[in-house]
């Protein structure tokens, strides 16, 4: 039965086609977003490419999370547009978008005490009824193993600590196996080891051909793991490019209103950013 159907359409949904490395997966063009009366983003031009980790950095209130939400099609553009997989986000249905992009929210909440394994499995919901529903079990298992949450698979989500919840939420997002990962501060609640773990996962996903956009506060992490970084300042992109070129003491000092020193790591050469402190 299934073989007779058009393989690219399942129940009216257009399934995503493979994307070549380096081709744009999500694009914002001349994007302006207003929240209430306040313009939060303006003149944003940004492209997330397959096989690349793109870090969004900037001070509090610069518009990082808003930009991520706009890329996720949560917020409407007042001007300009956002494209995913080459089509304006407004042309996709919710079900089709769910096959193309996965979003990790800043804080993970759950109204009812579902067990962890069930929460991760929710990430597979978009694929129900498609051929890739066969991947459900391995996708859930590998996402849980990668985020190190397998050992509390049976515990209710509500019984976990903040850091454990954050990892479970990430596992759910990974299990979705979408070509575009939008992660809003995935490291905020995590200890040192798990911060590194999460960014290694980002790199692995990029190496596997996904586009990863990640909001980060830690400039050191951004410098070490991102292919490109976009520094947001007052709702605009101040500068974007490889971290080694973008993270200069002058620019970061001005954007963060805090003098910083930037110097290369003695072994890896990645830029280290340290606030200027009195000796």
């Amino acid at each position, binding site marked *: 039965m299934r073989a007779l159907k058009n393989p690219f359409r399942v129940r009216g949904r257009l399934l995503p086609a493979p994307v070549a490395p380096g081709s744009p997966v999500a694009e914002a063009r001349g994007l302006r977003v207003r929240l209430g009366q306040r313009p939060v983003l303006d003149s944003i031009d940004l492209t997330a490419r397959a096989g690349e980790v793109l870090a969004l950095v900037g001070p509090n209130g610069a518009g990082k999370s808003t930009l991520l939400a706009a890329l*996720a099609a*949560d917020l409407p553009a007042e001007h300009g547009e956002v494209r995913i997989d080459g089509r304006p986000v407004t042309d996709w*249905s*919710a*079900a*089709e*978008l*769910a*096959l193309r*992009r*996965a*979003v990790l*929210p800043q804080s993970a*909440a*759950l*109204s*009812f*005490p*579902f*067990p962890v*394994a*069930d*929460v991760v499995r*929710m*990430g597979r*919901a*978009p694929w*129900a009824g498609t051929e890739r529903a066969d991947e459900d*079990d*391995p996708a*859930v*298992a*590998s*996402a*849980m*193993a*990668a985020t*190190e949450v*397998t050992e509390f*698979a*049976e515990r209710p989500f509500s019984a976990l*600590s903040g*850091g*454990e919840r954050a990892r479970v939420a990430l596992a759910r997002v990974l299990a*979705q196996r979408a070509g575009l990962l939008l992660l809003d501060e995935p490291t905020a609640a995590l200890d040192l080891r798990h911060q*590194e*773990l999460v960014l*290694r996962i980002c790199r692995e996903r990029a190496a596997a051909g996904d586009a990863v956009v990640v909001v980060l506060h830690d400039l050191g992490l951004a410098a070490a793991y991102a292919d490109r970084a976009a520094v947001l300042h007052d709702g605009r992109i101040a500068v974007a490019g490889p971290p080694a070129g973008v993270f200069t003491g002058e620019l970061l000092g001005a954007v963060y209103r805090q003098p910083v020193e930037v110097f290369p790591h003695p072994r890896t050469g990645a830029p280290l950013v340290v606030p200027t402190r009195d000796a």
Partner: protein
Amino acid sequence: MTTSSPEHIRTGAATAPDRTPAPKPRRSPAFALTAGLLAALLVCCLLSAGLGAYSIPLGDVLGSVQHRLGLGGAALDRVGESVLWNVRLPRVVLALLVGASLGCAGALMQGVFGNPLAEPGVIGISSGAAVGAVASIALGLSFFGNWTVTVCAFAAGLVTVLLVYALSRSGGRTEVVTLILTGIAVNAFAGALIGLFIFFADNAQVSQITFWQLGSLAQATWPKVLAVLPCAVLGLLVAPFHARKLDLLALGERPARHLGVDVERLRIVLVLVVALLTAAAVAVAGIISFVGLLVPHLLRMANGPGHRFLIPGSALGGALVLVVGDLAARTVADPAELPLGVLTALFGSPFFFWLLRRTRRKQGGWA
């Protein structure tokens, strides 16, 4: 989490995702629960059909049912047959319909609001529907014949759900306090409207309204069963199809949308279904509160919060509670009859209180 015994410190940076098999889902007790509920429901229905002022032995009940179905058996004498088929059975069927509607509406409402304290009675939907029903009685409306009370209850109930929904949500979430306070306000306003209608009603209508308001199945007849059947059955049939989406909605609105759920549509459909179910229950039985709170909660404790079992399970559980409750209401104070709504509130309120305390403890205050 923060243990630092040596075996917990794993060294080495590489953590390639090992291909361990997916953790086997626990064998859930859903099947056993469903079977148990169905069996209990069957037994209680038969008991309820037999017990009462005019007692009919179980064998005779079965015989008469068989006879009517053309499967052998034997009819009872004239009185027995009349009691069974014109008094007891419509009452049992009505209890089933009302109970299933209330249980299901409670489970749906909690899922839509993402709040385990949401229940048609507590947050004022039942009172709202009651306003419509009282208005139709007091004003002597009859434009839909037999269905008039149900239709009016549905219309008023729908307006109330939408109102409560709009008032109690902020920033995509429903806080417990906001929800309960909204319920108080809506209940008060509905009470005032009902009072106003009673004030303008004549004596016969007043006694009819008062008795109806206490919540009772005493006046069950087949036409009344027919009057609520379409609402209840439609609601009960549509509800289970949205179970998976309700599971996803537990993550919050945006995450549910990120997983492909058309949240706006889901919400509209489910609000309509809740209004249908509540109207079905309120139109015949008045305000019977706490069934929709108690039943889904107990089932969640037994089988977890997954809606695929919770929604049909709550319908079964609600039906069971009402059949048993109605049996108790008309037998414990024999020959007098307790109003069913009074009985459920008597047991439901302490439970609600306990639930509130527990929620509060978990949140560390109301903030």
